[in-house]
């Protein structure tokens, strides 16, 4: 089929799909007139029941904790996939070889240095705060983890590849990423050992609105933050390595 025919067929199909989509949303409750039962019930009951004031994070790590376990492994599997695709062979010389082959991209502008130095600590702190208070105020392990990784990306922007690469050794990232996923899984087993069901909040809720209000949920939260940070950094590092030192990882 030629490209032109294909696009014509596609446009007809898209027009049909558009009609179906419009027909289906017309019967939804009008925007702003939400009628779902679950959301209202959780908004009413999550705080009295679980003492965690951020209901979204309570859903992620408690009510739908099992889904989050699966989500952790989606993230884990995709990072493993990317690593397998990009990292063909690995030996102990690799790290030095990458650093030797990488072009000299040190940032020489003082303005960029200063801007980077001014950005990194607040970003890092904001990331830690988002994770730590994820069950109390808006935030959580996923959001905070991305921000923590972002703070380290700024190191790359402000100081260049070598500074970033030496600050985030790939073996450590591999280890951190695996431990994050393992910790989440084992915390679920911890609940089993405590005589409750898998991923149950075995430490029990603490005083409302405080850091320990979540019981064992903050532990799940930190495990997620560790995994997300490491996963984001690993993805970035693998792509970056391919870019700066394409020949180092030998092809099969």
């Amino acid at each position, binding site marked *: 089929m030629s*490209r032109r025919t*294909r*696009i014509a067929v*596609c*446009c007809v199909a*898209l027009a049909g*799909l*558009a009609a179906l*989509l*419009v027909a289906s*949303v*017309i019967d*939804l409750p*009008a*925007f*702003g*007139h*939400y009628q*779902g039962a*679950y*959301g*209202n019930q*959780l*908004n*009413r009951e*999550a*705080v*009295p029941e679980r003492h965690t*004031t*951020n*209901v*979204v994070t*309570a*859903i*992620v790590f408690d009510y*739908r904790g099992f889904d*989050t376990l699966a*989500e952790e492994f*989606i*993230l884990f*599997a*995709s*990072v493993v*996939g*990317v690593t397998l*695709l*990009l990292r063909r062979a690995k030996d102990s010389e690799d790290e030095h070889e990458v650093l030797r082959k990488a072009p000299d991209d040190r940032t020489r502008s003082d303005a960029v240095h200063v801007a980077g130095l001014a950005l990194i600590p607040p970003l890092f702190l904001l990331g830690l705060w988002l994770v730590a208070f994820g069950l*109390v*105020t*808006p935030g*959580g392990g*996923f*959001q905070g983890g991305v921000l923590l990784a972002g703070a380290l990306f700024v190191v790359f922007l402000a100081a260049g590849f070598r500074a970033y690469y030496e600050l985030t050794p790939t073996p450590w990232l591999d280890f951190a990423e695996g431990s994050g996923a393992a910790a989440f899984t084992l915390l679920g087993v911890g609940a089993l050992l405590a005589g409750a069901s898998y991923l149950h909040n075995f430490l029990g809720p603490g005083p409302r*609105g405080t850091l320990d209000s979540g019981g064992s949920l903050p532990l799940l939260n930190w495990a997620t933050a560790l995994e*997300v940070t490491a996963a984001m950094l690993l*993805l970035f590092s*693998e*792509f970056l390595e*391919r870019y700066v030192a394409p020949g180092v990882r030998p*092809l099969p």
Partner: protein
Amino acid sequence: MSYLPYILAAWLFLVGLYGIVTSRNLIHLAVCLTVMQSSTYVLLLAIGYKHRGTAPVFYGAPVGSRAVDPVVQALTLTDVVVSVTVVALILALALDVHRDARTLDPDEIAAFEG
């Protein structure tokens, strides 16, 4: 106007799909997929929105105050994570394709194999 956010979601979905079908570059295709997937964020959040509802965080706000649906927000969070992982995998595959076929145009890759 009360259906506008839903129509926006449908539009993002269709425009992303059109981009994928007509794409001449695998990286462009990955970006189109992200556009398509962002329609699901808009749809989920629009379904859970309540007029004059606040965020479902009851720190400083009394329980029982009018708040939007937290379930769809948690689902959107999952959605974003899945989107990131999918794009990362596609980009890694695109790098592999480029190494083997020396092109990122899906049409030329088909020609290269056949």
